[in-house]
């Protein structure tokens, strides 16, 4: 049971019943299975950490929603190997020192069988490095640095680390593959002033140059974490007369940037605006009707893609449970728990070594579509859509129109990850 969610026991039990019904409808579970359900025995525990305070506190809450729903459904379907699933959330506060302490708490004190979560790339790397000391699996559900799978897993052979969410390839490479078809020759960047911002812009430039040697990168401006006033950045970049702007600002900063850019008349002047995290639920909802239409955005999962039964049913159940549409962090956390269940049952045990073997190469069907974990770097591969922001009468926020999905094999980097 999540000690740090505000969601109480009664809600949990009631929801379990609803979850059972929901899964019947989704065809995920045969009627007989539910009746035989009631999990018993030593619980399987997942320790989950994310940002629960400060300016990014909402992202932790998105993870809690997805995790809670997954646990309720898993327990309604008989648990993991017949045992009940329990989980606990802790606040990483975006501080590697705190995150390392939390990871140790989960494994040494809480008795976690698995560790999931993590929003920040720096934290993912710091915690990733100590997982071999703790000898448990870490399933990252957000932190996107490519150093996690390329360096830690592939080059250093750290087999305890997995990631279910798409890495920065989506932000830096897939974006360029969409942008290569635009009639834009002059690109500029407004990015967050830390690794994620630098890496995604570099990947974007390198990839785009391969397809379009004629493009120029005319300006860049870097906003430190916590910037609320983007005026100086917008002004600096627009002075170089770009035709297209690429930005990897996300969460609240993306909302502030778009609002302010709109006031500065940016969208009337440039031809294209590309924001890989601009399609995240919090940004779509935060901007509402203030989000200009026609901007190219994406997200690590978007609730209307793919249009499969599994996804639609998930979105319905999620909306019924929480009164909102699932954020990508909710879907990745939800799927992470189902992945761990699937792998444990494949392995017939929750022992780390056996589950690692089961996860390698494993394919799962999740709301985000078909996902499989690469053996070489433990990174999950799945398709993520790009689209133009578009008004839709059904929703109070913009949706993604003109959907395009770049096939994962084309934009994911592959071992040996050189060049």
């Amino acid at each position, binding site marked *: 049971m999540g000690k740090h969610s505000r969601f109480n026991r009664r809600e949990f039990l009631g929801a379990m019943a609803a979850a059972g019904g929901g899964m019947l409808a989704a065809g995920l579970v045969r009627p007989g299975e539910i009746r035989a359900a009631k999990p018993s025995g030593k619980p399987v525990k997942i320790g989950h950490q994310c940002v629960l305070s400060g300016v990014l*506190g909402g992202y932790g809450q998105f993870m809690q929603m997805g995790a809670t729903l997954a646990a309720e459904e898993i327990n309604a379907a008989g648990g993991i190997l017949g045992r009940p699933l329990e989980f606990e959330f802790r606040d990483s506060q975006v501080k590697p020192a705190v995150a390392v302490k939390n990871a140790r708490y989960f494994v040494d004190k809480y008795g976690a069988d698995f560790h999931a979560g993590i929003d920040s790339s720096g934290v993912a790397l710091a915690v990733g490095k100590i997982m071999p000391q703790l000898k448990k699996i870490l399933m990252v559900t957000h932190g996107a640095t490519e150093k996690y799978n390329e360096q830690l897993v592939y080059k250093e052979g750290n087999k305890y680390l997995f990631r279910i969410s798409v890495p920065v390839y989506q932000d830096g490479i897939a974006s360029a593959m969409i942008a290569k078809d635009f009639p834009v020759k002059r690109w500029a960047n407004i990015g967050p002033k830390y690794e994620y911002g630098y890496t995604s812009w570099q990947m974007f430039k390198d990839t785009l140059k391969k397809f379009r040697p004629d493009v120029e990168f005319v300006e860049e401006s870097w906003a430190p974490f916590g910037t609320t006033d983007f005026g100086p950045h917008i002004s600096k970049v627009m002075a170089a007369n770009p035709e297209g702007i690429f930005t990897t600002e996300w969460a*609240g900063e993306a909302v502030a940037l778009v609002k302010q850019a709109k006031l500065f008349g940016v969208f009337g002047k440039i031809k294209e605006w590309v924001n890989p995290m601009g399609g995240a639920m919090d940004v779509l909802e935060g901007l509402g009707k203030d989000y200009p239409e026609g901007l190219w955005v994406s997200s690590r999962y978007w609730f209307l893609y793919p249009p499969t039964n599994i996804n639609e049913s998930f979105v319905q159940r999620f909306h019924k449970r929480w009164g909102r549409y699932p954020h990508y962090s909710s879907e990745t956390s939800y799927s992470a728990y189902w992945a761990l269940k699937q792998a444990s049952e494949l392995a017939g045990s929750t022992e780390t070594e056996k589950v690692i073997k089961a996860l390698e190469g494993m394919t799962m069907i999740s709301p985000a579509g078909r996902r499989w974990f690469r053996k070489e770097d433990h990174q999950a591969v799945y398709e993520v859509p790009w689209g133009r922001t578009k008004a839709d009468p059904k929703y109070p926020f913009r949706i993604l129109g003109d959907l395009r999905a770049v096939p994962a094999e084309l934009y994911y980097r592959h071992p040996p990850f050189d060049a």
Partner: protein
Amino acid sequence: MFEQLLFQGLVGLSLAMYLWLVSAGLTLIFGVLGVLNFAHGSLYMLGAYFGYSAVRVLGVSFWVGLAVAPLLVALVGGFIERFFIRRVYHIDVAYQLLLTFAFILIFADLVKWYWGPIYQSAPVPAGLSGALPILGRPFPVYNLFVMALGPLAALGLWLLLEKTWWGRTVRAAAGDREMAGAIGVNVPQLFTGVFMFGSWLGAVGGALGIPIRTVSPGMAEDYIIQAFAVAVIGGLGNLKGAFIGSVLIGLVNAYGHLYAPVFELAFMYILMAAILILRPQGIFGTSQ
């Protein structure tokens, strides 16, 4: 090229005026009460949240929210001063800092508990969503509005403190607490009033920001350090200095992006340290 420089300067000035509006209350409170109020960041945040709720939840216009929210925050400020800060006037400055710091922690969680941890955003009010062509490029009306409010507030404060009876009494009490009390001024009540006024100012800054910024439980921590920097650079307690200090920081911020973006994060702190080392009384302060 020259137009670009000028335009960037205007952007810096609108940043500066916003910073001034947010920090004026902090400076006033320090100048009169001698308290460096960490909680000013929280009161700023409450102004933003109350304004946001007025617009998003109650559905009133941004202008109504801007008028009403700061009044509520002034009440909160009065409560804090009357029941907590008043107890620590006579003890070491360190304890005053720690007391007001406690409020940052408390308010951060109260806000998170009531409004949730997810950042929120309100729509841009219709009257402020346009742009005027300046130097050949669109300059937001919103920024012009803030740039106008800044000097207006400065003028208003000056008039209040120099020309009204209340203002003169406040200045007297700031200069010599005991003497003011001796001649019959109800100093504790006056101080509460000043604290409420300073809180009101900070909250106006907060509510003013919601059209273009997001509100989140973590926003107090970010802004309070900037407000401290402004207060220090201008000379702690000196309103004229705070105004100039804001302009300095705003311009350094705007031009720094153009010329030396590598050091950008450290600019404000370097300036702060330089003033403290070379001229601690600030730009306009008198040496003690």
